[in-house]
C-alpha cells in the first residue's frame, strides 16, 4: 500500500516537473525575444526602461538556472504570471474559471461512470447476443464522433431550435436571481455541455466494464459459484461485478486527461466560462502567459484528481489494504 502510493507520488512529481520545465523553457527557447511571449506584441511599443524593468522582474538578464530558480520561487508563492492583455494577474482570472470546469468534469465523470457501468453489465449479461453487438456498435460510433460537433448539433436542435436550453454561458447575466431560481438557472446552462461531455465519456467506461465482466466471468470462482447452484443473477451482481469494478476505477484515472481535454473543446462550443474556454480565448488573443498558466493548472487538477482516486482505490480493493 505504501509502496503503491510512493510510486504514484514519484510519478506525479515527475509530471509536475515536466509541465513546469516545459512552461519555463518554451518562451525562452523560441526564436526572438522571450518578452514577445511573456508580454505580447505590445512589447515593441514599450519604453525601453519599462522593458528593462520587466526583463529584471523575470530575471531575463541572469543565467538560465537562476531564471529557473526565480520561476520556481514565484510558482511556489502561487504566482502564475501576469496577463498583459487583460491587465491583471492570471491567478485572479483562473480562480473565476476553474470552479466551472471542475463542476462540469466532476459531474460528467460521475454520470458517465454510473451509466457506463450499468450499460457494460447489461451487455455482459447478453454477451454475444444482438443487444451486446448493438451496444458495441453504438459505443464505437460515439467514440468516433468529435465532441465539439456533437455539442454544435445539440445547440442547434435543443437550444436554438427548440429553445429548451440557453445557447451559451453558465448563468443568465443581468437578472439577479436567488434561491431555487438561481440553482435552476445554472443547471439549465449546465445541461447541454454536461450531456455532451458525458455522452463522449460513456463509451470508454462501457467498453472497460464489459471487458472486465467477460474476463471475470471466465474465472474459476465463478464456475464454482455456478456449480454450487448460485442463480445467474447473483453470480453476475454478487460475484462478478465487484471484481469487474476495479479496472473501471483504473480506467477512470487513465481517462481523466482525456475527459479534461474533451471539456476544453466542449466549453469552447458552449462558451462555458471554464478554463477550457479560457485556453481558447488565450489562443485567439495569442496571450501566451495565460495559455501556459492554464496548461499548468489543468495538469495540476488532473494530478489532484488522480491522487484522490489513488487514495480511494484501497477502499474498493481490500487486497491493496493488506498488501505490504
Amino acid at each position, binding site marked *: 500500500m505504501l*509502496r*503503491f502510493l510512493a*510510486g504514484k507520488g514519484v*510519478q*506525479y512529481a*515527475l*509530471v509536475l516537473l*515536466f*509541465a513546469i520545465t516545459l512552461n519555463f523553457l*518554451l*518562451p525562452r527557447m523560441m526564436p526572438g525575444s522571450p518578452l514577445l*511571449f511573456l508580454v505580447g506584441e505590445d512589447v515593441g511599443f514599450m519604453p525601453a526602461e519599462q522593458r528593462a524593468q520587466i526583463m529584471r522582474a523575470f530575471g531575463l538578464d541572469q543565467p538560465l538556472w537562476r531564471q529557473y530558480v526565480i520561476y520556481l520561487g514565484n510558482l511556489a508563492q502561487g504566482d502564475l504570471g501576469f496577463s498583459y492583455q487583460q491587465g491583471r494577474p492570471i491567478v485572479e482570472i483562473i480562480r473565476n474559471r476553474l470552479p466551472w470546469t471542475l463542476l462540469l468534469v466532476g459531474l460528467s465523470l460521475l454520470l458517465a461512470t454510473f451509466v457506463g457501468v450499468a450499460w457494460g453489465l447489461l451487455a455482459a449479461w447478453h*454477451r*454475444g447476443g444482438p443487444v451486446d453487438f448493438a451496444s458495441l456498435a453504438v459505443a*464505437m*460510433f460515439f*467514440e*468516433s*464522433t*468529435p465532441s*465539439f*460537433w456533437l455539442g*454544435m*448539433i445539440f*445547440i442547434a436542435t435543443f437550444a436554438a431550435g427548440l429553445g429548451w436550453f440557453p*445557447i451559451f454561458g453558465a448563468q443568465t447575466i443581468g437578472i439577479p436571481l436567488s434561491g431555487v431560481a438561481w440553482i435552476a438557472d445554472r443547471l439549465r446552462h449546465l445541461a447541454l455541455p454536461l450531456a455532451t461531455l458525458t455522452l463522449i465519456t460513456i463509451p470508454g467506461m462501457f*467498453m*472497460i466494464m464489459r*471487458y*472486465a465482466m*467477460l*474476463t471475470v*466471468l*471466465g474465472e474459476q470462482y465463478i464456475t464454482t459459484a455456478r456449480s454450487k447452484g448460485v442463480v445467474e443473477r447473483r453470480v453476475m451482481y454478487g460475484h462478478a461485478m465487484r471484481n469487474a469494478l*476495479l*479496472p473501471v476505477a*483504473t*480506467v477512470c484515472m*487513465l481517462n*481523466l*486527461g*482525456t475527459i*479534461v*481535454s*474533451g471539456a*476544453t*473543446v466542449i466549453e469552447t462550443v458552449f462558451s462555458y466560462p471554464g478554463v477550457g474556454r479560457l*485556453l481558447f480565448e488565450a*489562443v*485567439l488573443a495569442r496571450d*501566451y502567459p495565460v*495559455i501556459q498558466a492554464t*496548461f499548468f493548472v*489543468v*495538469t495540476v487538477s*488532473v494530478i489532484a484528481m*488522480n491522487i484522490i482516486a489513488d487514495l480511494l482505490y484501497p477502499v474498493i*480493493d481490500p*487486497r*491493496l489494504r493488506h498488501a505490504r
Partner: protein
Amino acid sequence: MRGNPAVDTTTEMAAEVAAGAPVLPLARPIRRRVRVGVVGIAGVLLLIVLSGVGALAPWIAPYDPDETTGNPFESPSGGHWLGTNDVGRDILSELIYGVRISMTIGFLAAAVSISIGTLVGVVAGYFAGWVDVALMRLVDIVLVIPFLPLMILLAAYLGPSFWNIILVIGVLVWARPARVLRAQVLSLRSLDYIEAARVLGASSGRVLRRHILPGVLSLSLAQFILAASSAILIEASLSFLGLGDPTAKSWGSTLYYAQVRSAFLTGAWKWWVVPPGLMITSAVLGFAFTGFALEEILNPRLRR
C-alpha cells in the same frame, strides 16, 4: 503501481482496452470471427471510399474549394448541393478536398507516433531492467498529462502549420502503442527460439532485427491504424480551436468557421455543420474498425 500484481494486471487490461481492443472472449468463436470479419470489411470499405474521394477530388468536386463561386451563406441548391460558406465558397467541394488534408495528417501523425511507440516499446520490452523502468515511467507521465491542453500549448508556440500539427500529434500519441508493443515483446522474448538465438551468441541488435521486430510489426500495423483514427479526431479538435493549417482546410477548419459564424443559430447547420462531422466520424470509424479487426486477428493475447 509496479510490484503489485493485482493492480498491474488491471492496468494492463485497462491499457489494452483503452487502446481500442474490445473483445468477446466468451462469445462462440466462429460467430465472433464472422463479426470481426464484418467489422473489418466495413472499416476497409469506408477507408477505400474515402481515399478514392480524396484521390479523385479534382474530378469529383464541382468547384475549386478556394474560389468564390456563389454568394455568402447560400442554402443548398442545384448549383451548390451543400450551399456556400461565409465567403461564398462551395461547402461540398471543401469537404471533398478536406479528405486529403484530414487523412494525410492522420496518416503522417500516426506514422510519427508509431515509430516512437515501436522503438520505445521494443527497447523497453527487450532490455528490461532500468531501461524498461525509465521508459515506462515516461509512458506513465505522458498518459497522465491532459494531452489536448499540452497540444494547444505546443501548437500555439510553434505556430499553426501542416507539419507542426503532425509533429505535435505524433509526439504525444505514442504512449499507448508503446505499452501494447512492450507487452508483445515481453511475451516474445521468453519464447524458446529467441532464447536459443541469444544463447548461440547473437548480438542484441541481431535478435531485435531478425526475431523481435518481425514479431511485432503486424501488431504495430494494427496500432498504427488505431493511432491514425485518434490522430484524425485530434486534428479535427485542433483545427476547430483555430490551430489548424490556415492554408489547407480540413474538416475541423470547416467546423471552426461554422462555429465562428454561428451557423448553428440559423438553418445553415444542417448543411454546414452536420456533413463535416459525419465525414470525420466515418474516417475515424473506418480506421477504428480496421484497426480493431486487425488487432483481433493479430494479437495473440486477445485470442482465447
